[in-house]
């Protein structure tokens, strides 16, 4: 291992290890991409791909992200952006959960969809996408609907969960599972020009406020549809929240709801008691 450290230290420039040198370390020492990334971070060096994170995140925090596991429930409009951004941010392990395959009406907004992916499972596409953009990230695909019966198996080990589901009932089930498993989750929901984001810690009843009937369907989305830009914005807000929760920094939206209105171009913050 000290040979590996020497190998990396010798090649590092300004504390950063270039991708070609990370690949060279994988070849020379028989490592997976994730193992090489861990070795680089263990040596207090930074994979050069994260150089533009550096003004915001220390190398120690980048290591923290690499050690984190984020479960993404739903790989539709929101989930596609969330997977993409978490992988690029450098979160080391993702759990990608969705029962569906891509269909044509996904193409207007779902980042992981393309004509070539119609009929292909969203989970398989997420795994392939992450392998393409950041092969140091491990993705566990779960091609299933998250239920109270499988939640423990699927979510155990996660640090944070992203709620990117598409119905009130499924979201409330997720909230109940996270409460039992003592997991925080970052909620995002969209419909037309509109979206909500909030971060929920175990014991918080924020989702009961947003879905007072408990049995509602997809809310205003069923009337308003979803364009390309709303999931990109709301999914990105969720990733910013996840980043802060993973690192314990900043001011997460706890007991606060951020309500985004892209039609009137207003953002509202609702504080809950």
């Amino acid at each position, binding site marked *: 291992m000290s040979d590996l450290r020497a190998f990396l230290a010798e090649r590092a420039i300004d504390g950063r290890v270039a991708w070609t040198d990370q690949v060279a370390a994988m070849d020379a020492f028989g490592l997976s991409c994730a193992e090489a990334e861990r070795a680089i971070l263990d040596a207090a060096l930074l994979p050069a791909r994260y150089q533009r994170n550096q003004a915001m995140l220390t190398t120690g925090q980048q290591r923290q992200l690499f050690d984190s596991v984020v479960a993404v429930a739903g790989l539709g409009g929101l989930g596609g952006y969330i997977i993409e951004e978490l992988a690029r941010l450098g979160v080391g392990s993702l759990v990608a959960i969705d029962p569906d395959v891509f269909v044509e009406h996904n193409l207007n907004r779902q980042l992981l969809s393309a004509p070539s992916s119609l009929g292909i499972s969203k989970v398989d596409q997420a795994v392939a996408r992450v392998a393409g953009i950041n092969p140091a990230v491990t993705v566990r695909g779960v091609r299933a609907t998250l239920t109270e019966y499988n939640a423990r198996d699927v979510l155990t080990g996660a640090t944070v969960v992203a709620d990117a589901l598409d119905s*009130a009932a499924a979201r409330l089930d997720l909230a109940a599972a996270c409460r039992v498993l003592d997991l925080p989750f970052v909620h995002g929901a*969209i419909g037309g020009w509109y979206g909500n984001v909030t971060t929920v810690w175990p014991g918080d009843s924020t989702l009961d406020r*947003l*879905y007072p009937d408990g049995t509602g*369907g*997809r*809310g205003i*989305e069923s009337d308003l549809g979803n364009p390309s830009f709303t999931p990109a914005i709301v999914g990105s807000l969720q990733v910013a929240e996840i980043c802060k929760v993973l690192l314990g920094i900043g001011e997460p939206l706890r007991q606060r709801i951020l309500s985004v209105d892209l039609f*009137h171009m207003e953002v509202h913050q609702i504080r809950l008691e």
Partner: protein
Amino acid sequence: MQATVKLYLAFRVGRFTTADVDLLDPATVDHLIQRLAIPGDSVGLIMVNGRQGERDTPLSDGDTVALFPVVGGG
């Protein structure tokens, strides 16, 4: 009695952003929602005078009620 009503997101479209609405006394949030012809199952977060409200929260003259629609898509 009169309540000041603030509508958010899609509730504004074809209605208003802020308006004073006359209600028969006694009134609840539910009466207000019916008065505005908003489908009850589309109402999500309710705030009355900046505090969380419920459908059966009683209203007094001069109260401010904020209504947000359910948003559930992903």
